[in-house]
């Protein structure tokens, strides 16, 4: 135990509680509260209503939910495949320059602001042979680029930790590399794969910067709608939409985390 005396433990708990309330509980609590607020003048709402939530479900913001869910699902799946592929490649590449190159390419989207990624796509696909400006494809592309970096990081860390003895044992038993990949390596990486899928999904659900650069009127994600609602002064409806988004994202994450694997018990 880090802190031995009861007094020290109490102090530590108090400090933790203060920061937790300030940084986590308060913003989210206020948000949920605001979702049910009709009027808010003092320290607490003066009157409550369900109309914000009803509005969130009955007007076009919910189209944004569908758009966001499809975008997040597609981009996180793309990211998982690309990120895993790159992570396995990184492990297989023996050349130091090659390793650095792969790492740099996949770090880049995190290293620059997401707006830059959006701008880059916009510039690249606004004219010329491939014209994607104003399509939903470019939104999914932007999200994929951004979250692949995270998938790569997560899976790469897991691949590095994977004991090469398993792969060698499989090879000594006559398993070809692809068979070993499907039957040994990927199953052993499954916890990392589901983990990074969940992370990518959550990140994509909340992505705003790059999306703001490339979105079109027929493919507007939920965060953009929330931003617009807030901009137009509908804070409480924005809060309600946000609360719905949070709930659904958490539900999806919960489902993904339930995909328990036997490799978890290693």
């Amino acid at each position: 135990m880090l802190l031995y005396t009861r007094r020290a433990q109490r102090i530590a708990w108090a400090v933790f509680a203060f920061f937790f309330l300030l940084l986590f509980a308060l913003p989210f609590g206020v948000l949920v509260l605001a979702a049910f607020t009709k009027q808010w003048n003092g320290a607490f709402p003066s009157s409550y209503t369900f109309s914000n939530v009803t509005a969130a479900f009955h007007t076009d913001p919910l189209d944004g939910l569908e758009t966001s869910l499809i975008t997040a699902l597609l981009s996180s799946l793309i990211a998982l495949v690309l990120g895993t592929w790159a992570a396995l490649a990184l492990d297989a590449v023996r050349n130091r320059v090659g390793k650095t190159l792969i790492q740099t390419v996949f770090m880049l989207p995190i290293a620059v602001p997401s707006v830059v990624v959006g701008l880059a796509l916009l510039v690249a696909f606004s004219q010329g042979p491939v014209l994607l400006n104003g399509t939903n494809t470019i939104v999914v592309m932007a999200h994929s680029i951004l979250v692949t970096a995270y998938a790569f990081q997560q899976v790469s860390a897991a691949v590095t930790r994977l004991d090469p003895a398993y792969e060698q044992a499989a090879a000594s038993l006559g398993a070809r590399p692809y068979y070993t990949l499907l039957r040994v390596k990927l199953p052993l990486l499954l916890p990392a794969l589901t983990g990074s899928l969940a992370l990518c999904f959550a990140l994509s659900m909340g992505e705003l910067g790059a999306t703001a650069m490339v979105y079109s009127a027929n493919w507007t994600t939920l965060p953009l709608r929330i931003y617009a609602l807030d901009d137009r002064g509908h804070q409480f409806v924005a809060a309600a939409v946000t609360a719905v988004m949070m709930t659904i994202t958490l539900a999806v994450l919960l489902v993904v985390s339930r995909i328990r694997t036997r490799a978890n018990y290693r």
Partner: protein
Amino acid sequence: MAATDADPTARRTGRGSGGIRFDDVTVAYNGNVVLDSFTLDVAPGEVVALLGPSGSGKTTALRAVAGFVRPASGRVHVGGRDVTDLPPYKRGLGMVVQQYALFPHMRVEQNVAFGLKAQKIVAKSEIPARVAEALRMTGMAQYAKRYPRELSGGQQQRVAIARALAIQPSVLLLDEPLSALDAQLRSGMLAELARLHRELPDVSILYVTHDQIEALTLADRIAVMNEARLVEVGTARDLYKRPGTEFAAGFVGNSNLLPVTVAECVAHGDGSFRATVRIATESGATTGELVTATCTENAAAGETRTLCLRPHFLGLAAAEHHDNAFSGTVTEVQWRGSAHRIFADVHGHEVRLDTNELRNPPAIGDEVWLHFSAEDAVLIPASGTGSPSPDPVSAAEPAPANPASTEPAPAKPASTKPAPAKDAVPIPATATGSPSPDPVSAAEPALAETAPAEPAPAEDAAR
């Protein structure tokens, strides 16, 4: 290079055509040679142990057979087929590694079936029978449905062996398979491995270990390795009884290695030679007693050699001089329950003596005589020229250059010790009697025929 992969029937030939041949194999990592011109033949059905300290290249040699390291030069043959350029999965070998590497997400039976499914060499309907057979042989039949994490270390080990045997390889590679087990389990698994080999007499086994007991117990032949090189190879018995190098003498069994100067060497009946030698003293003076030892080749008078004396072949005598004995001062006495281990200073060299428990052990500082039979003392070439590299295993000191003691056989050693009285105490028989099991030190060989029969007779006199 176009390997023999072209012949599909040559792949995974199954039991009966084993054998491994290392043909001048050199392996280097980034210019760092980890296996140097390694040449060794393992006959079909033979068990060969690669024995050496860590970093000696023994695991590298095994991995070169498995295909996980590529030789910089030289060829590796398995079952008469050049596999040097084949990827590991085309070599059809069974392999068991130190940490077993059982697939944690598969049940025991799935682990064992893995190779059969991956290779698609057996009809699906046959797989359960093959798995059951492999599990039966390793005594793991009742654990088929378990996951590896639900098994003990020894059980995991058995599953790993079953998994390797299921594909019916002609060659089995075992890389320190017992080193993760505790001492008691280890000796049980040793017996198990020996039994398995009796059941599968055609399977060649390459067994990498740093444990001399494992090597002596299991191997038909032992290849002693050090510093990326093969030092000596021979049958376990030969290496133990007649080591040809100081390193092998020190690594295969325990030994006292004493620098000696040959006084005389005469042919013996059985083709070997008997040499009369004098222990070189630390100061280089010619004070050492003359003793007789066996040597496999003729030695010229005046030559510097190393005398290899197994600690359990030494007998202890009190003040009386012995035939074939030298005097020393007791520096340490260790009581190990059923045995005594005594260290003595002999002309500046530390000599270790292992004996059955003594009723009246000597005290530190006592003058004793250490005697042995010429049959049990072996003369081996001195390593290097007068200043051998320090041997971490042997208790012996490096042999100092000893120019003063080159004169042949003086009439009597100019010793300050009591005068020799050759007829005072007879040499005890060393080739009979019960073994001396040593429960304290598992690292020592306990070969029945090599144990001293009795405590030294002088001991009896002292009681």
